[in-house]
């Protein structure tokens, strides 16, 4: 006899979560990955799916503001939490996020498949460390695979974005 205080496991779940600022309620299979929830249920195809076992970083999103692999989370687990995807970074093509603009200016992408995951990883990184060294940028990038660029232009873009932010803030820009 089931204890009335103990929940029953279920193969479908109703999830209420905030994605890019908008509340969403969907009833989905319990086994649905967050990455597939974002792409198939919400149509947010900016989140890319690469390896589906946590190695490549392409599916990185922000969960309550910190980067996580959306292929290693169930949609059911974001109940009551807040998810941010690459779609939330820029209001439109004419008004890119400063990091996206720096990627554009530095040619930091070729095929672009890894870019959304890298942007979200680095947006969170720059918030914590607004004036990183090149080594720190490379360290922060270690969990995101890029098979086109060789990373050099990505590193350049992050340093450029950091430098622009420092200049805008009126701080002294020392070369590093």
């Amino acid at each position, binding site marked *: 006899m*089931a*204890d009335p*205080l*103990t*929940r*029953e*496991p*279920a*193969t479908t*779940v109703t999830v209420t979560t905030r994605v890019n600022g908008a509340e969403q309620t969907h009833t989905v*299979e*319990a*086994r649905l*990955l967050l990455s*597939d929830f974002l792409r198939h249920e919400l149509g947010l195809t900016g989140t890319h799916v690469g390896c*589906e*076992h*946590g190695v490549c*970083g392409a599916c*990185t999103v922000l*969960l309550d503001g*910190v*980067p*996580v*692999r959306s*292929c*290693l*989370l*169930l949609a*059911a*687990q974001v*109940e009551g939490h807040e998810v941010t995807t690459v779609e939330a970074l820029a209001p439109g093509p004419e008004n890119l996020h400063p990091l996206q603009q720096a990627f554009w200016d530095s040619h930091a992408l070729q095929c672009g498949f890894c870019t959304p995951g890298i942007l979200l*990883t680095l947006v969170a*990184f720059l918030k914590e460390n607004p004036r990183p060294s090149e080594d720190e940028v490379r*360290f*922060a990038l*270690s*969990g*995101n695979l890029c098979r086109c660029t060789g990373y050099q232009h990505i590193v350049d873009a992050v340093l450029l974005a950091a430098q622009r932010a420092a200049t805008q803030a009126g701080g002294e820009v020392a070369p590093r």
Partner: protein
Amino acid sequence: MKPAPFAYVAPRSLPEALALMARHGDEGKALAGGQSLLPVLNFRLSQPAVLVDLNGVRELELLAPGDGVLHDGLRMGLRMGALTRHRQLERDPIVAKHAPLLAEAAHHIAHPQIRNRGTVGGSLAHADPKAELPALAVTLRARLKLQRQGSERWLDAGEFYTGLFSTALEADELLTEIVWPATPLGAGWAFEEAARRHGDYAQVGVAAVVGVDDGGRCSAARLVFLAVGECPTVAAAADALVGEVPDETAIAAAAEAAAREIEPRSDVHASADFKRHLASVLGKRALRRAFARAGGEHG
């Protein structure tokens, strides 16, 4: 790659979680950070009928200095709930103060995105031979609290690991708390690891904890390798350092003997011989840094 169908339940308290494990443990799995379990499910290497998601169980979030003495006289250092995230090991000043070896090793545990989510309890219970935390738990002689509905028991980390991905944990039990003994006053510690890409699984890793007496001789030395066997591997060769002056010759002899003692297996990334070479080099580095720290102000 998608998981096979399963039923999901997210208990909100420890009693509820234990009741669910009692009812579904045989056919189910406990889900903590999911950074090892989700890949296993995605590959369908495992197809549990029920997943019990522990992330809403607040009782498992404890992180506080310990107060008291353990059964073999070691002082309690840090009490840690099973849901403590790797990121907390890396960043929380409580960890740096009371279990500095964990703080030093934490940035080797996968990548920031994984550390934000992965948990100490999950990593210890998953028992991956290439994971850092099982070896750290064996090095520091962590005590693990295993709970089932109506009862609990404590195990030393050294008794917990029984084989490849295997532990003493029964199907209806949860690993709920980890107690890390305090680093003894004047002890030195270090962690070293080699991986193909920073944050990838170790080819070889090693943790060292040492003590030095007033006369400058080694009073205790513990050297534990990861990724060179089915379980964390305690190197008996470190015992030879006790009573010696830990100079470069003694350190080199101990690390080289430890590297001869282990039995790593070749894989696509590294031959057994190369892993032995790494074990010797990393063992020397770890011992050197640990002895350099020993006798300092920390404790």
